[in-house]
């Protein structure tokens, strides 16, 4: 009998048929799942639709043109909070159907050193967004609105969606905001690695936040059109009339933004900035703040600043995280009380020295520092904060627009009474870095809130007495298993009978 007519051949043919059926089904199901990847919907069962993205965020993500990689750094001991993880997942899913995508990866900065070094990440609890060449780092704690509760930061609301959306828009935008550091007057420079006078660490921090950092010498060139912010750190010599005019024009006509870090030792008129500062309602004193209270001084004589404006956006990170500022030589900076309130100018003292501090003006003529020396600076009555000397002042001009009912912002200036607090050796103080970056964000309006609601934060704690907790445990251990065992016994006895 031919082989093909034998039972053996038929058996193997039928087996092959079964195998082919299996492959067919597998291919069909694989293809179905592949198609389904791009046509999915997600249903949020949570109360208040906690994980659903707002329509604004969804529309941004659907129109994403490039792929954004998000790297979350963790260590063994830290976990990404569930809200953050959920939010990142929703971002990844929402961007799936767009031309660009969001890819998410967790990097353990201690175990996966090579990967962390490749990305330039050293700290845990950071989200690094990278789109093409544009990086932007966001700390996980920036995703929460915090409140200070007895000196401890406590999360109040989750604002992760608006922060992350803003960051995604920022990195995926082809334009990077330019920050120009002024040079040519002995200012501290961003490419200098010197511990005392270099700003290289600050430059790195700004670059990782997707700012382009450059320098400009106003004596030989004009202020670049793309300048989002100018920064002058501890200038030592006078700005010429032409330079002053460039700055004035930039701030007024172009609604420019300027951070001035003015070290003591040279007064505003010697720098040629007195008119400009007067125009922006800021008084800068020629003094050095002295402090007698050891609570507000470090061992090596640095000044500790712990008093901040409770409402201004610049001071919020310092208040929420209970950060302090560590400043070297510092001078007094105040809002000008004579500046008319109707000028459209809003000046605010962001940070102030302790109530025991005074501004010593006799330090250069050899007088022993004493709060009673003649000419010393003391708190100005009627100005906030009461009884304290200001060290950082923010000024914002809002110009009315014709007969319209709304106004437009016409420039922002922040003046710091200390120059080297952002130098390499001091920038690592959490408060210094937070204050400067917060001032940068405010100046370039990166703190502008998208129309995305904050989410409430739920905390679960069982408030039971020890006796009640014991009763609960015993109930969990024995009630249900006991009932089941009883049921089993009944069945057993019934069947035996």
């Amino acid at each position: 009998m031919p082989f093909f007519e034998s039972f053996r051949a038929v058996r193997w043919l039928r087996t092959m048929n079964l195998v082919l059926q299996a492959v067919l089904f597998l291919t069909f199901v694989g293809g179905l799942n592949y198609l389904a990847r791009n046509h999915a919907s997600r249903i949020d069962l949570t109360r208040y639709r906690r994980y659903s993205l707002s329509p604004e965020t969804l529309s941004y993500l659907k129109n994403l043109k490039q792929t954004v990689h998000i790297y979350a750094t963790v260590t063994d001991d830290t976990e990404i909070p569930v809200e953050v993880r959920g939010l990142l997942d929703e971002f990844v899913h929402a961007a799936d159907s767009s031309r660009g995508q969001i890819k998410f990866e967790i990097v353990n900065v201690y175990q996966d050193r090579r990967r962390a070094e490749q990305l330039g990440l050293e700290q845990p609890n950071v989200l690094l967004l990278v789109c093409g060449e544009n990086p932007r780092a966001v700390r996980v704690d920036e995703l929460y609105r915090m409140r200070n509760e007895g000196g401890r930061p406590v999360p109040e609301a989750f604002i992760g969606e608006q922060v992350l959306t803003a960051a995604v828009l920022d990195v995926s935008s082809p334009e990077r905001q330019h920050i120009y550091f002024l040079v040519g007057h002995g200012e501290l420079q961003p490419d200098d690695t010197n511990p005392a006078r270099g700003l290289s660490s600050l430059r790195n921090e700004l670059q990782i936040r997707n700012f382009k950092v450059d320098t400009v010498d106003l004596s030989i060139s004009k202020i670049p059109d793309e300048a989002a912010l100018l920064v002058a750190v501890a200038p030592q010599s006078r700005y010429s009339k032409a330079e002053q005019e460039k700055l004035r024009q930039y701030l007024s006509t172009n609604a420019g933004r300027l951070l001035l870090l003015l070290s003591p030792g040279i007064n505003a008129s010697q720098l040629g900035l007195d008119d400009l500062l007067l125009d922006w309602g800021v008084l800068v004193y020629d003094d050095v703040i002295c402090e007698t209270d050891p609570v507000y001084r470090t061992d090596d004589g640095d000044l500790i600043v712990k008093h901040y404006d409770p409402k201004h956006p610049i001071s919020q990170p310092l208040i929420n995280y209970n950060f302090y500022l560590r400043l070297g030589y510092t001078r007094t900076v105040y809002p000008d009380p004579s500046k008319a309130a109707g000028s459209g100018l809003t000046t605010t003292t962001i940070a102030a020295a302790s109530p025991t501090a005074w501004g010593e003006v006799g330090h250069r003529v050899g007088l022993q520092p004493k709060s009673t020396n003649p000419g010393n600076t003391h708190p100005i009555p009627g100005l906030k904060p009461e009884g304290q000397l200001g060290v950082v002042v923010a000024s914002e001009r809002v110009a009315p627009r014709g007969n319209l009912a709304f106004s437009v912002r016409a420039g922002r200036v922040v003046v710091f009474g200390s120059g080297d607090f952002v130098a390499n050796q001091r920038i690592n103080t959490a408060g210094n870095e937070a204050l400067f970056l917060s001032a940068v964000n405010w100046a370039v309006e990166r703190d502008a809130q998208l129309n995305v609601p904050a989410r409430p934060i739920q905390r679960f704690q069982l408030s039971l007495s020890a006796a009640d907790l014991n009763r609960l445990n015993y109930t969990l251990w024995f009630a249900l298993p006991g009932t089941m065992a009883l049921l089993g016994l009944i069945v057993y006895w019934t069947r035996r009978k």
Partner: protein
Amino acid sequence: MKHFPTLLSHEIRMLLVSPATYFAATLFLAFMGLIFSQILDQYSGAAQDTSPAYVFFHLFWLPVCVMVPLLTMKCFAEERRLGTIETLLTTPVTTTEVVLGKFGAAYLLYLALWATTGGFFYILHKFSADPRFLDPGPLVGGYVFVAVSGLFFVAIGVFASSLTRNQSVAAVLACVMLGMLILGGSVLSTSAWLEQDMFQPVKTGLEYARVFTHRDDFTRGIIDTRQLLFYLSGTVVTLIFSILGVEAKLLHA
């Protein structure tokens, strides 16, 4: 499929009248109760960011890897060892009906076991008198995950049982396959070699099939249609493989 209800009710009746079922259920509940009370100890010590349901369902793999092989190992291995599968299939029932009947009974028992753990949340609610502990998102999402993923897990157990005539081997095989499905995706998708561009489709596929990622979504209260499809299609394929496996074994018996 007219004999399917008959086969299913027979299988269920056999399970309900067996004291072994209650013995297994008692052990399951005692074990889960112990886990739940350990979880609640954490909530008593300090405020937590997530609800107890979220943490409870995160440990789903522990009972799955033990209970599913125990529930399914008998399905075909025992029938084949005793030689009753051939007898059963000489009656006017199809292999599909038999596989679905056994699968349905095991799945319903699996669901019933998990459903009894709802009692833990009721007890917690009674003691704490705090409605927040019954956070609907993680609670409903967690049970939906258990129900949907259970289809696939039980189908894998049935498939393992269809491959061998030895119950212990079937249990071990099911345990290994479940372990590979639950843990394998997570382990492989984080492998360094998958970072290469040529393996990106493999990585995407593994990430799509990561059970822990699905669990995270469900227990947060998010239901994704892709994940539902993954489990439903996985169940269908595995059951088809079981049917083909039984038929192939009969063919070569």
